[in-house]
């Protein structure tokens, strides 16, 4: 009985592992897709803004003196509530000077921006942090040189809410299927392993020298082995009697 329970536990464990891994991987794929769709929402106004800024550069007005730019940035923020802040920075490699900005850039966006692509350490979420997407676009002048960068910081919390709902749904489905699988598998295995008990009992009785079912003997490899054991024991006993001085 204990053996049967052990085997069934392992089988259930494997099913549980299979469904858990599948759920985890499916969830991460979904999350990626969701984030891509959310970010593509920002691309529509961002592309339009980029075009407008580049057109203004083509007029010859320097970016840092163009008073139209902050109006353009504010306009985008007003029309797109998901966008938290927009910054126009110069194209310095290390330290970027902010030329114009609109909206309030949350503190968490600095961390999100600095987080490396390889994600060496998963950034710890501090309480009160607004999770954000940070997206960048280069601003190119008519000569084809990158003269500035446009950084959009948009709210990720809505996407995360949706993802958490999806996660809850996924866990619910996985748990249900796990239980259903266990409910199906356990009785089947219990039934199948019943024959294992019979085999072991029969083999044990053979090894102990008791009578046993011949049909089981013929069809079972283990019982055949038990019979071999018994035969060798009998042979050894006979040899011992012959060798004994009594």
């Amino acid at each position, binding site marked *: 009985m204990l053996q049967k329970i052990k085997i069934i536990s392992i089988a259930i464990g494997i099913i549980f592992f299979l469904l858990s891994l599948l759920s985890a991987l499916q969830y991460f794929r979904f999350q990626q897709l969701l984030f891509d769709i959310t970010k593509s929402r920002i691309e529509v106004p961002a592309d339009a803004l980029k075009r407008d800024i580049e057109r203004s550069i083509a007029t010859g007005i320097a970016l840092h003196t163009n008073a139209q730019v902050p109006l353009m940035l504010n306009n985008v923020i007003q029309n797109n509530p998901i966008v938290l802040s927009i910054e126009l920075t110069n194209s310095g490699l290390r330290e970027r000077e902010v030329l114009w900005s609109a909206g309030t850039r949350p503190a968490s966006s600095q961390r999100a921006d600095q987080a490396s692509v390889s994600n060496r350490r998963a950034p710890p979420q501090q309480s009160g942090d607004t999770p954000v997407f940070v997206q960048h676009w280069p601003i190119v002048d008519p000569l084809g040189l990158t003269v500035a960068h446009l950084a959009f910081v948009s709210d990720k919390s809505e996407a995360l809410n949706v993802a958490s709902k999806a996660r809850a749904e996924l866990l619910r*489905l996985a748990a249900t299927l796990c239980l259903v699988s266990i409910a199906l598998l356990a009785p089947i295995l219990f039934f199948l392993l019943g024959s294992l008990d019979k085999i*072991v009992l029969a083999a044990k009785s053979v090894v*102990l020298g008791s009578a046993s079912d011949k049909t089981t003997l013929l069809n079972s490899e283990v019982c055949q082995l038990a019979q071999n054991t018994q035969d*060798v024991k009998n042979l050894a006993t006979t040899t011992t009697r012959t060798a004994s001085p009594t």
Partner: protein
Amino acid sequence: MNTSVKKSVERKLATRTYFALSFIGLGAALLLTFLVLSSFKDILTPQVLLKSNVIAKSVQTTISDALKLGIPFESLVGVEDYLADVLADNPEIDFIQIKNQQGREYVKYRDTRQSAQSNQNVIKDTLTHDSLPTITVGLRKSYVNEKLSVMVGDAIVVSLVAFTVGLEIALFFVVLWIFRPLGTWVAMIEGLKTGRAQKNLSATIAGPFSELVTLTSQYFQSLTSSVKKTTPLTKGNDWYEPKAYDLRLILFLFVFSEELLRSFFPIYVKDIASMHTLIAVDIDIALPIMCYMLFAGLGTVFGGGLVERLGIRNSFKWSVVLSTIGLGGLAFATTVAEVVILRALCALGYAVATVSVQVFMTKTAKTDAERTRGLSTFVGAVTAASLSAAPIGAVIVQLFGTDAAMLFAASLAVLSWFFFNGITIPSFENSAQASAANASLGKNFSAMLKNQKISIILIGNVLSGKLMLAGLLFYLTPLLLLEFQFTQVSIGQFFMFYYVSVTLGNVLLARFVPSARATMPVMVLGALLSGVGVFSLIWFNKPEALAVAIVCLGVGQSAVLTLAPALLLKITRTDLPQVNIAHTLSLVRTVDRIGGILGAAFAAAFSLLIDYRDATVGLGIVVLTLVLVNIGLVLRSNRVK
């Protein structure tokens, strides 16, 4: 166990249990995928609608700007062309309608056959404004299905990964509870028959047959005490004689730990190189990979000798130490130089560990069939680890970061040692053989390469197969698929064709081990199949043809990877008895690595001169030319007959 008994109760039970587990497991996975995707569709659709709302606003702004410039609504020019551009940029949109308060409208449908009739497969989103025209955007319901359909392919891959790992775990328990106890019992029965040795039960026997083993052991004790004076009994070691499958989980864990890095390692190196560039970023990314290949090659060449000198247990132990330091150290590396050094350690550890395990698996075999099964076990474990590790590594990185993934890999390497420590390693050689093992590596390699049969097998089968693998799968397949406009995710799925084919081929091979006479033809057939599949691209320049080529490669390689070393070991045993197993396996793996390097080189050279499709076919021609070398083997064997 007497394997010639067919349809025994135990076999029926094992088959039924396996099928029950697989059916329910995979069925649950399939059902979960189906239900989850339906649920995801309901969750994603509103998100896509939000984007269509943004598009509607953008269109409204454009129209508004035109109207502000003084252009009357009815005089707007090129509206259809503009809307066509918007539809082209946003594949989820089915139609866009612009309507002013006077009822004048402009509308553009993606499918020109559609009219103003309502389409059931479209969700409408309307943006109204007091003074501006109303914009209505139609979102295709099928768009979300199309996005999610990519996940179906993923789900299949993921199910495969999870099933593979689950199977390895199941196999471990089968070995622990079934094979080992029965193997011990069979050994005891043999001992009873021959009266040979008083052996020990050093490890606790678990499982349903443990009681039978205990009973027999008790009987053995009583027998010994009553006849010890009459029957000379010699002292020996453990009843259980280790088999190849004992190391399967250990090998799986070790290789898994190494392969875990595959999905994210280049990005990790790029990140470090960007911050602390050694030479140039592009070169710095390649440095650890090149160093790994170099040290893996060196480790392979000298690994055999090391295994013979230190013994299997010690060499595996030191491999684990090197790999643990290498993998764990990567979590703390901050410069490219450190990464290069640590990868060198990993490479050495990997090379020596795999040689140690392969030596163990072949030395524990008593017959050629067992040796083939042993090598098949080796290939199976490595393939299973290669198949499953990368996707799991990607998830760990997402959850916990790259450094945590590296530390997890290191801990898996340590875990493999933990399991290894429980295995009894019998002493394989007597002192004469041990001194023979100290014969120089160079002499043995030279002797083997001078043997015509060995050279033919190495060039015509081992080298050619690896050449095709490296050139086709690792170099040309991603490039061809990019030409066919596949995404990165889909490219990863294509790789699975190879691993699945190898796994299935391997299972068949383990089940139906070819006879001694059939081994060589099957191996040559495998080599031929590895190269011939690419010719389907000549007639069908399509992804399906590439898939066929990859499957042929996988099936072919499943034969070559197992049977080539088996044949080589047999030949060295008969023709070159002074050469030990470790050196033989070292040579095979060295030629294997050379084939990998040549494969990439050929693929790169061909790609420079001709297009990728033709380069693939060219590679096939090179491989088949090498396979033709096997004719020498066939002629030799005919001559012998």
